[in-house]
């Protein structure tokens, strides 16, 4: 194990626990964004080939798309509830 992977892993573990324990819905999305940064960096440090870099880029952009949709729906359903 490298020292860099241990630091990134500690940050990711903290983010997972804070997503699980947070009450507010909007602040869960902020922690989820930080977690996807960590996982994207871990994928690139684990695979160590150009295909791993492509995987990290595709994963990060699609996870951003998904959290964009969740935030839009929270704003829309605030008026209905």
């Amino acid at each position, binding site marked *: 194990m490298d020292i860099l992977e241990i630091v*990134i892993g500690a940050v990711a573990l903290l983010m997972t626990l804070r997503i699980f324990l947070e009450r507010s819905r909007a602040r869960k999305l902020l922690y989820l964004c930080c*977690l996807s940064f960590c996982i994207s960096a871990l994928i690139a440090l684990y695979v160590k080939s150009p295909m791993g870099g492509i*995987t990290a880029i595709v994963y990060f952009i699609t996870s951003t798309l*998904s959290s964009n949709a969740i935030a839009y729906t929270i704003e*829309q359903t605030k008026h*209905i509830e």
Partner: protein
Amino acid sequence: MKNLEVLPLISGVCCILGGLGVVLHTNPINKIIMLALLEIGMIGLIVSSYYLDIAIISSICEPICTIILLLGYMKYLTTIKKKKKFGRDLPVLSK
């Protein structure tokens, strides 16, 4: 446990906490956020056994599934609200 790397450990923690979170929360948007956490764990485990093409396919299919669930939730919510409003009005109209 000593020959595991960092990525499988983090992904396993994401899977277990995400699964418990989907079951224990009761608001549907909270459940969908936890489902995103669970899929993050699944993609990490697929990458850690070096199936990179399936990881790309899976991470493309994940926001499609999320968007379908969110659109369905909005439609479901408006249907239930409309039913409650009609349920109060309709007997008055039919009399």
